[in-house]
């Protein structure tokens, strides 16, 4: 078995991941009827919570901090910020 040599050091206990979803007080929800699939929300999301899947833009809530940039920047105002709590 050959020994692997790295020029740069590597961490040996995996990745540092913080549960940033717990910060959220409001969650963004896309209104599918108004959305024109322009993709501006994806380019401006600081957390990369918006993904492109099966020809549609979708918001994932695992790490979304609820900053609301997507709702403000949407040219068709198709994203609403709805208060957290109630249904998961």
């Amino acid at each position, binding site marked *: 078995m050959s020994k692997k040599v790295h020029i740069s050091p590597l961490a040996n206990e995996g990745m540092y991941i913080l549960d940033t979803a717990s910060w959220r007080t409001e969650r963004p929800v896309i209104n599918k009827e108004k959305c024109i699939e322009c993709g501006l929300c994806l380019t401006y999301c600081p957390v990369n919570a918006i993904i492109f899947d099966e020809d549609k833009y979708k918001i994932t809530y695992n790490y979304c901090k609820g900053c609301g*940039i997507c709702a*403000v920047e949407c040219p068709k105002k198709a994203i609403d910020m709805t208060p957290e709590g109630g249904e998961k």
Partner: protein
Amino acid sequence: MNYIEKLRTSEDMVTPGMSACQGCCGELVLRRILQIAGKNTIVCVPPGCMSGAGVVGWDYQTGMKIPVHIPLLTNTASFLSGVSQMYQRKGRGDVNMIAVAGDGATADGGFQSLSGAAERNEKMLYVCYDNEGYMNTGFQRSSTTTKGSRTSTTPIGEAINGKQQPSKYVSLIMSMHALQYCATASPSHMQDMVAKIERGLSESKKGFAFIHVLAPCPTGWSFEPDQSIQIAKKAVASNMFPLWEKYNGNYYITVENKKPIPVKEFLQSMGKFKSLTDADIAQIQQEADTKYETLKKLASE
């Protein structure tokens, strides 16, 4: 492939959960740069907001999917020079060498090593995300802070009314070195920013590339987190942060402002400038106009 397709198909290299504030443009800039750069990259993040937010890792855990180093505040560019030289010697000139530093590590403490690396034309891309202060330690003033801004070391009171000195225009100073590529970018103009990052990465294989990116900070500048991109848009529209680039010795203004909005609109959209008087605003307006005129003269030659 347009820039939106590029961004939606490229892999995110940074940890999904990092502790940057809501609406942080520094985080946005960091993720976009590394999405464009891809896996074949070495990153250097000096002390600042981004390393404080956990992208350099903590306790034997890493914050990125690619090798990341934390140098000191003062030696980012010289540290990366050494790494870059070693990779050239090993015959790995294809690896992207990127430094993502805040304005403190660029314009204040790290300036001599940065200037030295630019003068030696080391092969790297140095990106400065400029949030106009030392944000991770509680918004102390830096040399790129705009005049009149409230910071924790230049408070508003009887003795002084915010920062007393005009800001240092670090991108223009850097462009006066004989470097390979120099540009300013704003996250609000994403297409322009992606093009500049791509160009910077390809030029960094030949020599030193520097990109100065504006990163509005909701926590320090006192505005709502959802307004980050709007503030960046206003900074460009009011000529507080003109977008230009320099390569092959020539300057080009990339986003031309035919009808600039008054800087008052930019200044009054956030809390850190709330104590400005009309005389202060007039002075800042004059400085912004002078800056843009200088750039126009440089670009027309």
